């Protein structure tokens, strides 16, 4: 999540209340529980909400191939700010709302 977050560690304040009452919106930085490893909680930015049509380059390091998907109902598309070194929805697909743990407010 460089340059937004410092690569060697940050302390952030994340709130868990708004996820019960409203859906996340585009541009929010959220803490999610990784769909690949349930013990990890990566922090990514919401780039697309349900119904959005997202076009992304699958692997910016190796090639230029684009892929377009529609975010299904009940899911969000999350992406790290540093797209060259981030495992996010471009790798594991859109994330259901139930996996969102909280929304980041500010850096402490």
């Amino acid at each position: 999540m460089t340059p937004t977050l410092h690569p060697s560690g940050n302390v952030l304040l994340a709130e868990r209340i708004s996820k019960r009452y409203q859906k996340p919106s585009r541009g929010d930085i959220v803490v999610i529980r990784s769909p690949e490893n349930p013990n990890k909680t990566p922090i990514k930015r919401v780039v697309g909400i349900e119904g959005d049509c997202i076009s992304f380059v699958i692997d910016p390091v190796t090639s230029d191939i684009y892929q377009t998907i529609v975010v299904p109902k009940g899911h969000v598309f999350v992406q790290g700010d540093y797209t060259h070194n981030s495992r996010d929805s471009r790798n594991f697909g859109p994330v259901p709302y139930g996996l969102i743990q909280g929304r980041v407010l500010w850096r402490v």
Partner: protein
Amino acid sequence: MSMRVLSFLKQWRGTAKEAFENVSIVAKFLCLLHVTDRYIISTTHVHGPSMLPTLNLTGDVILAEHLSHRFGKIGLGDVVLVRSPRDPNRMVTKRILGLEGDRLTFSADPLVGDASVSVLVPKGHVWIQGDNLYASTDSRHFGPIPYSLIEGKALLRVWPPEYFGSLR
């Protein structure tokens, strides 16, 4: 005039202190109840046709514990409560039929024909399916779900009393 108000308030001081202590005991009890219900063990009302004949159509109350999924002790064949990937405000009850790395073959639409589909459950995901294949929306429709969506494991049924006991 103010002297009378002050002496009046002083008389009620003892009662106010006692009332405050009693209220704080009730508050502590409610907090303990909430933590137990949310994070340790709770009763859940489940209804719907998707888990027949294991669970009744008209609704059962089951005892579910919320500790196993945090320690990774959820296994094949467990009846679990999961948060629906389509609607985050809904909890569904299904059985786990596949863990990460399993290859599963299922009939795409049991009402229509015998066409079967084979999938590999990806890392960090599980495959859930209702016992009633004809009336259940489960992983055959929305795919394998991430393990973190599991919120509890069903232990036994407590209501209706004639069906008290484990869910087999």
